[in-house]
């Protein structure tokens, strides 16, 4: 398939400037990045360097101020709100603070992206249970987020991110809010997904050790890519 040659992410001189009142904050100052299908990339950098900003752009949550960002070959700068929403359905995003919907139980949280993408009730229920089984939480599927530990919530968030069979998974500090034992569990799960299901992974972290679990490390410093190396 020719699609194989299209990188899942292609950033060309991407800049992002936030306006803080009248003061412009340059969060990204011209980023060039190419992520191929099946890659496992760690984005490493100090706080405030622009990691989350970059991840949000790749997740189609925001548009670059300038430059070109292609997701699966599509320039997101040219998409309208509806098209961006459609694109997001096929991107798995795992947030730093889990961001589960508190009033929904684990299964309903995992079903949510599928109900957004118009999948029928029976099918999404089945898939949600399968996904929760994959992340080892089948027994907890009727629990609300508040009744789950941080690591468990993070795994529900991963299951949710996988709901619509995304080409790639974006994780913003997936282990930032869990202990090291849980962190290595979560990382094991991510590696398994990457190896067995060939899901491309882009993971933001500022933990060197964790970053080295990936097969590629991209270092961000002050809104620019300072290093791009094989781990």
């Amino acid at each position, binding site marked *: 398939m020719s699609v194989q040659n299209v990188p899942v992410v292609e950033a060309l001189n991407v800049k992002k400037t936030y306006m803080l009142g009248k003061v412009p904050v340059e969060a990204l100052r011209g980023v060039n990045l190419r992520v191929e299908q099946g890659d496992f990339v760690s984005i490493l950098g100090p706080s405030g360097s622009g990691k989350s900003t970059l991840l949000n752009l790749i997740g189609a949550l925001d548009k670059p101020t300038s430059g070109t960002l292609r997701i699966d070959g599509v320039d997101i700068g040219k998409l309208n709100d509806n098209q961006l*929403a459609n694109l997001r359905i096929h991107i798995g995003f795992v*947030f730093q603070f889990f961001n589960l919907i508190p*009033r929904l139980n684990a299964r309903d949280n995992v079903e949510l992206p599928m109900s*957004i993408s118009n999948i029928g009730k029976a099918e999404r229920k089945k898939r949600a249970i399968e996904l929760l089984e994959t992340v080892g939480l089948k027994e907890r599927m009727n629990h609300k987020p508040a009744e789950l530990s941080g690591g468990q919530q993070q795994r529900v968030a991963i299951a949710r991110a996988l709901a619509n069979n995304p080409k790639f998974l974006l994780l913003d500090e997936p282990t930032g809010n869990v202990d090291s034992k849980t962190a290595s569990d979560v990382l094991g799960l991510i590696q398994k997904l990457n190896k067995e299901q060939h899901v491309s992974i882009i993971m933001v972290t500022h933990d060197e050790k964790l970053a080295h679990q990936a097969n590629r490390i991209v270092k961000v410093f002050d809104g620019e890519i300072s290093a791009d190396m094989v781990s």
Partner: protein
Amino acid sequence: MKGIDVFRYSFSAIKLRKLRAALTTLGVIVGIAAIVALLSITQGLQATLTGQLNQGLSANTLIVMPSSGGFGGGGFGGGLGQGASSTGFSLYVNNTAEIATLSPDIEATVAIISRSGYVQTDDFSRVVTFYGVDFERYAQIYPTFRAETGSIPIPPQEDQIVIGTRVNQPGQNGTIFFTPGDAINVSWVNATIIPPVNETYSATVAGVLEKVGGFGIGGPSDTGVYIPIDKVQSFFGTEQCDMIIVTLTNSDNTTITNVSKAIADQFSNQVTVIASTAVLSLLTTVFSTIQLFLGGIAAISLLVAGIGIMNIMIVSLIERTREIGILKALGMKSRSVLAIFLGESVIIGLIGATVGIGLGWGLAVIVAQVLGSGAFSPGVSGNTSGAFAITPLLTPEVLLGALAFGVGVSIIFALYPAWRASKLKPVDALRYE
């Protein structure tokens, strides 16, 4: 996102804040209940009055009165004015012959003189309205002018009178005061001379009317006392009459218009010619105004409820900013976010309107019962007690209108918060603490 899933999601959001949703819904309930109660009572009243008027006024009947007499003064059931207008114009009993020749469409004419007075025996005294009519012609025009006991004497003796059923049986409880043949004193206070004097003559009850129910202008009344026209003229010392009833051979609009105009012209426009259709349309107009007024007041309370909805939605929007960010990050379209928020208010509006309609109807029934407790049979009552048995009426229009209005107001006031929610940018919403 599918409609049913949008609805489920809206519902789960409402369930989370039960008390808040309940209070918001209460606002809608009160507004809708007020609207439904007021409208079903006034519509019931209108239906009752219209029904009663229809009994008393057939479509092919015209009523001719001196212009300024109008409906004022005497009113529907009580004694009508003095028969003379402020301009000095008067209708006379013998004008009937003149009117009868005006059009071949005229079937019959009858003059009515009415005066207040009282009837009495040794153990009975009652204020009544006397109606002087030609018994034969009056009975022809009004089939309800029919005796239940005794008979309508045709031609009547000078001293014979006919009384309405409630004159005979004021309590409507079976206690009757007269049987045909009984003597009765007919009195009035003659104020045309100074000092006024009490004038009385002794009459005989020839018949008691069947129950008429309702009332109409000119038509037989349960509280009326009917005296032969000749006797009335001599007793009250007048040739003037209060109204002339004209019946037509048909009730076509053109006939009604043409004859009305011919009569008005004949008396140089100093008479008012009332067609029953005109009375009914006047009644409809009056009631529409009343309903608009009362409905408007009630609607204001619903608007207040709408503001409550808007307030709650804005609070909810702020509380759930992060949630909206998550939904959008998961690929939810703006219009689905809009639908979720509107869905919440539609649910509140639907529940509020449904409960409100039920409550309003219950309220109308209770109020009608309280108002009607002085009356004895539903739908029909006398006009002396002042109490009407109102059967509240909930028309499909009011029912659907209330439902639509409740839901509509809920939607309109939720539009702005819902729109704002839908316009949130996912990154901004996710950063919101």
